[in-house]
């Protein structure tokens, strides 16, 4: 039984001290969780979606609970990249943890403009381009559900950034592997998935949709089987490393994603249930490996026995 476990993992040029990070939009920029989580304990921080201009987001109610999951239609409310750099990023820069900025846009030009603005920010370790948000009218998921569009965004952002480029895929597609190959071909260094599944809930007392926007994104344990399947399909289709997410609540859930082919994992909805979930899972992964004599956590990646 090996005493210490090597928890480091590589996402292209980016090395993480462990494979666990928060999922974008569920952890703000980390500050709100500072009372519960020492950011240095995480593999990376992933910020909420940042756009070129401030976005107001959608009308309320913006969330609804479902069986073993939740729907959200936040709509990428954010201050815009300028305010983000002055405020959140400046604060994050004082912490010893890689910062992955989640980038959103209504158009290819907006994605590019945000990436350009962040290029000179040394505190930014990598970009995660969100082409999969189901909660905005133009852009968002539209880019993630067609190969040409996904390829175009990736190509355009790739052209203006030297930072590790992560592209985040939407599960609301017929063939996730095809989209993954398209973004890999355009220079994505890492692929993250899944974003939320498009869902809807109706209040049977009022006959009204539970979300003001009518439809929203489904997350939480309910989506895990779909997410694990897609990670496995993408891992079989591309060579770039994968950040797996979708319903991770426990250490075993994280292991399941790594076995399916993920190099790192992101924890989203679980943060709302347990604000310390990310740290618990990072520690749990180490214990899982130690108990089984696995000296490097990276050995779990793709280790499913078929």
């Amino acid at each position, binding site marked *: 039984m090996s005493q210490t476990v090597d928890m480091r993992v590589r996402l292209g040029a980016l090395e993480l001290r462990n494979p666990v990070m928060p999922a974008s939009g569920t952890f703000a920029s980390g500050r709100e969780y500072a009372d519960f989580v020492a950011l240095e304990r995480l593999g990376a921080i992933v910020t909420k979606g940042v756009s070129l201009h401030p976005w107001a987001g959608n009308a309320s109610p913006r969330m609804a609970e479902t069986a073993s999951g939740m729907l959200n239609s*936040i709509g990428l409310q954010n201050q815009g990249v300028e305010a983000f750099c002055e405020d959140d990023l400046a604060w994050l820069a004082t912490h010893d943890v890689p910062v992955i900025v989640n980038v959103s846009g209504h158009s290819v030009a907006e994605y590019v403009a945000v990436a350009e603005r962040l290029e000179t920010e040394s505190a930014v370790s990598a970009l995660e381009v969100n082409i999969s948000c189901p909660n905005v009218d133009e852009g968002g998921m539209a880019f993630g559900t067609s190969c040409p569009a996904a390829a175009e965004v990736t190509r355009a952002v790739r052209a203006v950034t030297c930072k590790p480029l992560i592209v985040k895929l939407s599960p609301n597609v017929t063939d996730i592997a095809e989209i993954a190959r398209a973004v890999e071909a355009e220079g994505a260094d890492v692929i993250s998935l899944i974003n939320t599944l498009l869902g809807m809930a109706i209040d049977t007392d009022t006959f009204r949709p539970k979300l003001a926007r009518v439809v929203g994104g489904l997350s939480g344990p309910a989506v895990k089987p779909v997410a694990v399947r897609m990670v496995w399909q993408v891992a079989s289709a591309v060579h770039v490393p994968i950040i797996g997410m979708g319903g991770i609540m426990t250490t075993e859930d994280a292991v399941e994603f790594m076995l399916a082919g993920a190099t790192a994992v992101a924890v989203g909805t679980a943060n709302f249930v347990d604000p310390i979930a990310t740290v618990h899972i990072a520690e749990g992964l180490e214990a899982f490996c130690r108990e089984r004599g696995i000296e490097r956590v990276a050995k779990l990646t793709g280790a499913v026995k078929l």
Partner: protein
Amino acid sequence: MSCTGDIGQVQRRLLERVTVLANDRVAEGVGLVVFEAPRVARSVRPGQFVHLRIAEGADFILRRPFSVHRAQGERLEILYQVLGVGTRALSLAEHGDVMDLIGPLGHGWEMPEGTSHALLVCGGLGAAPMGMLATELAEKGVAVTVAQGAPTAERLVARELLADVARRHEIATDDGSAGTHGFVTALVKPLIAGDRPDVVYVCGPEAMQRIVAGQASAAGVDCQVSLERLMGCGIGACLSCVVSTVQGQKRACVDGPVFRADEVLWKSAEIPPQR
């Protein structure tokens, strides 16, 4: 002026395992649960709330937010209405059961220095966050008037507590089974005109809060309201709970639940009861 909001910012939020000391039905569909919660009970301020994990292994996973009704020493009290799956589960909790909660959360009631007279207006479960407030105001020597409304006399939750600490306690019930027959909003205008309070504190259905806010501003009196939103994280991260204000969208879980009434842009969706 002293402001739990400022405190709220520096105040450390805790994740605390708590034990149920008592859980009793206090009215039709309303329960009062008492937790042993030493750390949160000691630091919570009036108007703040806790985010409670009621069950593990259940088919619902999210926490539920509840205002702190009273905090005494290590005891923390929550007054809850049984609405759905979570509060139903809470109503089944027994002495000795262990849960966990996050708290103290949010920006509570502000108590402007030199307040000599306060009017508290609450409808239904809106009485929940008034318990701590009324008690603390009274301790500070502030003259407290309470205008409390409910559908029926039986549903006047925390009636005794409020009657004890208030200098004056006016009641309205929809069915006239206690106090004035009608809505609590009808009591407010005369009370403002008569007592000239320095501040009006309001909690209850949003439409009712909106009306009272209007009455207060018409009389030129400061007014604070406590707004409810569906909450995910409860700590400011998920943006589920936004409230539109004159300074843009604010988060009910950190910038609220208590807001200055004159800051709030009321949801036009919410049509106030016609009267």
